[in-house]
Structure formats: C-alpha cells, structure tokens
C-alpha cells in the first residue's frame, strides 16, 4: 500500500514531482561535475608536482642561494694550463666544470640525519644537483684585434669573440643515493634500457642518463661520459614519458658526484616523506625548527606555487565551482522542502482522514518520508546521468592545462638560458630542466575528470540527504496534524 500510494501520489502531482526532481538533478549534476573537475585538477597538480619532485615526496628541504652567491653561473677560468697556444697566437682550450646548479646552495649532508630525526618523518633521501659545463674551442690571439672580417667565424654560432671558434655544452647532473628508489627524484621513473642503480653502485663510476640526453648526446648503455676527466660508464637509460618525473640528464651515485665536483659531504636537496598525510605539517615545523636557515617546502606549498592555466583552473573550480554548487544545492534542497511542506498542507484533509481511519503518525511520516526519498532518488538518478554526461563532455573536450612550478627568479633563469652551443655572449649555458626548489618547470597535462565509486556515492548521497531532509520536515508537519482536521476542512 505504501509504495502504491507513493507511486500514485507522485504521479498525481506530476508537475511538482518533475520540478523538484529536475532541481535536485541539476544541483547533483553540478556538484558531480565540479567535484570531478576539481579531482581532475588536483590530479593534474599532483602530476606536475610529481614530475618535479618525484612520487611520494611530502616535503623538500633546500637552501636558497643568496643573490650572487652559489655556483652554477658559468664562470670559466682559463689558465695557461688549460690550452695550448698555436703558432698564430690563438689558444685551443677544452675545459669541463662540474659545479653546483644555479639557484641552489650546498648544505652539509648532516642535515639529512637531522631531518630524519625530526618528528613525523619516515624517510629521507638527499641529492646533489650539479651542472656540467664544457667549453672547447679556439680563442684568438688577444693581441690581434679583429679588424678584418672574422676568419673562420663559427658559422651559425659565432661567439662574442671575434674570430673565435668554440663550443659550449651544458647538462644537468644529479647525485643520488643508489638503491633508494622509494623516494627521491627517481621514484616513479622507469628504466628503459640497461639497469637502475643498486646499493652496490655506491662509489662506482657509473651513470644513469635520461632518454632525451641519450638521444641528444648520442649515448647508449655501455657508453662513457667524461666528467672533469673521469670516465663514467652509462649503465641504464631512464624512460622519459610525459607523465613521469622531469629527469636530470645524468644521475651519478651521490658520493661520486660529490667527489667529481669537489663538494665532499655536500647536498642540495633533501626529499622527505612524512609518516602520514596528517603529520606533514608537524614534520615540516619540526624540520624548520631544527634547520632555521633551510627552505622547507611542503606539497601544499608547492601546489600553491604552481602557476599557469592549471592554477587558474584550480582556483576557478575551488572558488566559483564550489560556491556555485553550494548555492544551487541549497536552492534545490529549499525547493524540495518547500514543495513537500506545501504538499502536506494541501493534503491536510487526506492525512486527517487517514488518521481518522486509524493510520498512526509513524505510518503517515513513513508515507511522506518515502515519497520524498523516492522523489530525491529520481532526482539523484537523473543527476547522475546528467553529471556523467557533463564529465564525459569535459573529458572529451580535452582541455589542456599547463602548470609551472618555481619562482620568478627561476623563470628568468629559464628565459636567460636555453641556448645550446654558443650563447649570445652569455655563458650561462643551458639550464638543466630541474634544479631544485628555485628552478622552474612547466608540465602540460590534459584535464581528466575521474568517474569512480565516490562519484556515484556522492550523487546518491546528496539525493538521499535532500529527500530525507524534505521528508523529515514534511513528515513532522504531517504528524502534527490532528485527526479532527478531517472533519474541519470541509470544502
């Protein structure tokens, strides 16, 4: 009887049923789309952050370079011993420098143990970010001022030195702890060829290189790279697909990197994993207390540091989307409640009659509540369908988002660099793609709003809440009616 009455009642006042269901459906669809879009943006943000800081990193600790300090700006020093002077007075030089990456400053490797002792820290790994710059070529005789046309100028890349012929090359080198795969820059990276590092590689002159560096420098597994005079064997090539970490060009065991760069017991970046997501802020505070000079950055700091269309999308979804869906949801709930109350008022005589026939208050409340719930569920199912359509449309639109991490200084650095070979008078060389905290990295992702169980649960949950809310209020009104109302409201 209950369900028959519910069905007949909802059909009997079809217009109200449709209005309330459509209101709920639109609100639910909006909430679902906003939720999914926001999850999609969050995923995109995670992708960007992971591509910069690796998977699983909750906190990074660095020490920012003071202006003018720090290594990395290619200050080549040419001594007499660096080259041989030929008969015509020009000097042939070949130099190879491995120095600390620009924008970062070395810290003692002791910080890693200080950090791992901090509260809420479960895992720590330290790296050393370096830039290798090679310069080779011929410098003209400083005595013969170039008055005539430059002789044998470097074709497309004639440097600022008239008549010189030289080649500048730069790539990023990073020292990592061999065998530490769970955390750090290579967490989430995959080996495309050869092998990865194991703990046995500590101290060995071996290297992992990125696929892109392998391509550009024409290297493969078994090749050797000469770094400040030491030959290092390539043992593995890291796959570079766009979702994975933005890789450095060359990875070395950290002790080898320290030895080759002369930065014994120095590190530039410490990757920290918290014991749980909730303890990250506590851990960050503890690290800051222990290392007041260091820059301690949590994932959420990093997320707020992401700029570009990704961050616009994020604030759009977070602010406008959230408030809009709350407003529409409130309106839909209000509509459902108002229609239910007016429905109960209109049915005063009906409920009075049923009470006069011996229907208990509980039965009347169940009746009104079930009507509202069924109404809510109709809205919920319609909302799920509309929301699903909306999300599929959003995903089909293939909205591409780009996120840039890093500060303004890094952006300038990136703009200043980028010239392979002879720069326009600047010896900055190519900035490595990733130079720690201060570096800038732009990652393109396509917005993919996920559809999962939580999605359906949210839709059904909202519908049930809306239905229950209206049902409880309506049922309460109906229960308060006196059975004598059946005799009173004669028409």
């Amino acid at each position, binding site marked *: 009887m209950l369900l*028959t009455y519910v069905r007949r009642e909802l059909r009997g006042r079809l217009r109200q049923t449709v209005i309330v269901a459509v209101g709920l459906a639109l609100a639910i669809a909006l909430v679902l789309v906003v939720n999914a879009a926001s999850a999609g943006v969050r995923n995109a943000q995670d992708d960007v952050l992971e591509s910069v800081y690796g998977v699983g990193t909750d906190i990074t600790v660095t020490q920012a370079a003071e202006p003018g300090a720090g290594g990395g700006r290619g200050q080549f020093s040419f001594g007499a011993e660096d080259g041989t002077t030929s008969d015509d007075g020009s000097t042939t030089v070949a130099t190879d420098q491995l120095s600390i990456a620009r924008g970062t400053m070395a810290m003692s490797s002791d910080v890693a143990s200080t950090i791992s002792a901090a509260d809420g820290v479960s895992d720590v790994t330290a790296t050393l970010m370096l830039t290798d710059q090679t310069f080779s070529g011929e410098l003209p005789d400083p005595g013969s001022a170039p008055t005539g046309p430059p002789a044998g100028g470097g074709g497309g890349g004639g440097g600022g030195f008239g008549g010189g012929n030289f080649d500048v090359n730069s790539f990023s080198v990073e020292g990592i702890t061999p065998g530490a795969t769970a955390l750090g820059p290579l967490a989430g990276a995959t080996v495309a060829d050869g092998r990865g590092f194991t703990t046995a590689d500590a101290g060995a002159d071996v290297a992992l290189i990125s696929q892109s560096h392998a391509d550009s420098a024409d290297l493969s597994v078994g090749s050797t790279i000469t770094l400040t005079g030491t030959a290092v064997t390539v043992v593995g090539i890291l796959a570079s697909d766009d979702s994975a970490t933005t890789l450095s060009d060359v990875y070395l065991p950290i002790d080898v990197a320290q030895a080759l760069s002369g930065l014994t017991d120095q590190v530039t970046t410490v990757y920290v994993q918290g014991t749980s997501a909730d303890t990250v802020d506590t851990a960050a505070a503890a690290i800051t207390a222990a290392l007041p000079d260091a820059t301690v950055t949590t994932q959420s700091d990093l997320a707020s540091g992401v700029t570009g269309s990704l961050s616009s999308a994020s604030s759009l979804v977070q602010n406008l989307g959230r408030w809009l869906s709350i407003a529409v949801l409130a309106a839909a709930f209000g509509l459902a409640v108002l229609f239910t109350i007016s429905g109960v008022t209109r049915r005063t005589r*009906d409920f009075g009659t049923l009470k006069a*026939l*011996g229907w208990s208050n509980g*039965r009347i409340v169940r009746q009104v509540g079930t009507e509202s719930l069924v109404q809510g569920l109709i809205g919920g199912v319609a909302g799920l369908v509309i929301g699903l359509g909306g999300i599929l449309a959003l995903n089909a639109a293939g909205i591409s988002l780009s996120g840039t991490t890093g500060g303004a200084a890094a952006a300038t650095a990136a703009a200043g660099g980028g010239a392979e070979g002879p720069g326009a008078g600047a010896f900055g060389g190519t900035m490595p793609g990733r130079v720690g905290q201060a570096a800038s990295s732009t990652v393109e992702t396509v917005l993919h709003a996920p559809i999962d169980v939580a999605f359906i649960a949210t839709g059904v949950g909202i519908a049930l809440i809306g239905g229950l809310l209206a049902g409880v209020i309506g049922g309460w009104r109906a229960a308060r009616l006196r*059975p004598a109302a059946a*005799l009173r409201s004669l028409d």
Partner: protein
Amino acid sequence: MYTLTDVSKTYRNGKKEVTALSHVSLTIPDGQMVAIQGPTGGGKSTLLQMLGALDRPTSGSVLLGAEDLAEVSSRRLTELRAREISIVFQGFNLIPTLTAQQNVETALVPLGVKARERAERAAAALDSVGLAERSGHLPAELSGGQQQRVAIARALVRQPKVLLADEPTGNLDEATRDEIVALLEQLWREQGLTLIVVTHDSWVARRAQRQLRIARGTVTDSGVQTPAA
C-alpha cells in the same frame, strides 16, 4: 455503548475561548440509530469528534464500553479508530490520487491485513455498495453519490462497531440523498451497528430511532421513538 458524563470541550484560540460542548451527559446503547441536529456552530461536529476518538474532551469522560476515551493513550485512540469506529464525511474525504479500490483498502492498512485479503475484502465491500465495476476509478471520475458509496464501503470494510456520519448527504441532491440514507439504514440493520448521523435534514433525522439536538453546546434528547415510515 457510549456513556458520556459531564463532557465539556473548550477551544482556545489565543485569548479567545469557545465552549463547543458544555456539560453533556448522554448514553447511547449498542445498535441504536441516532440523529444529531442543531444550528450551525452548535457543537455537532465537536460531539462527533469525541465519539469518534478523534479528540479528547476538556473535561468529563467519554466511555466506549469500559474505556474512557478521555484517559487512554494516543496509541490506544489510534487503535480504536482503526478497529471499532468508522466515519463517513460530508465531503466524502477520499484520497484523490487513489482509485476507489485503493481508497477502500486504506481502511484495512492499519489492521495489518495482507495485500491479497485486503484486495478481496475491498472488492466485496465495493460490491455491497453497488460499485464493483467502478473499483479502478479515481474519485474525480465518480459522481458525488458514487464517491459517498466508496466512502461508506471504506467505513464498513473492517466491520466496525460504530459508524459515525457527519452530514453524509449534505453535498448530495435529493434522489441521491435517499439512496445513501437507504444504504446506511440497510447496513445498520444488517450489521447491527451503532449508527450516529449528524444532519441538517429533518427528513433524514426522522428516520432515526432517536433525535438529539445540540445548540450552544447543550444537548436536548427526544428519547427513543419508532422511526417514521
């Protein structure tokens, strides 16, 4: 059997007090047919509410058998409304979204009757008021007289001890009025009900064994008579 002793009912609307029943004492034996008449606002419907367990008196006692309706729990009042007492209204009071058959079934719902038996008993009740072939119709698709027949079927389907009717023919034309009164009389006779009918219509009142008049909350009793032929 109803025994009313010194029953008063006062409605309070803010500061205004209206005394609808004032010190009414009265006995109605089982199986009697009683008509209640009186001017509008006299207290007829209020008295019917007391008899129908729809409301409690402000003071005095309303005994149905041995139970005082002024004292029993709300739950028991609900149960009495479900089992012992049925009411027919001037406005028919059918649920507009339910068919005739479903409307009759609503009276069996609080008794916990199973769906199948409910359907059978409702169909039989509709048949007994001559509406078997209209069972699938909505109230709006039926004439006033037919709607009141459905309401009577709904009242009688659970075989109550008491049938109360508040101006059951007030909304009907004369020919239909005669049909409905004849039907009520027939059911009263066949089922041994206590039938209490509030009416403005003297013709209807004269068919009862006993006439009560209520004016300004006070009852005058005609005593038992032989109903007019």
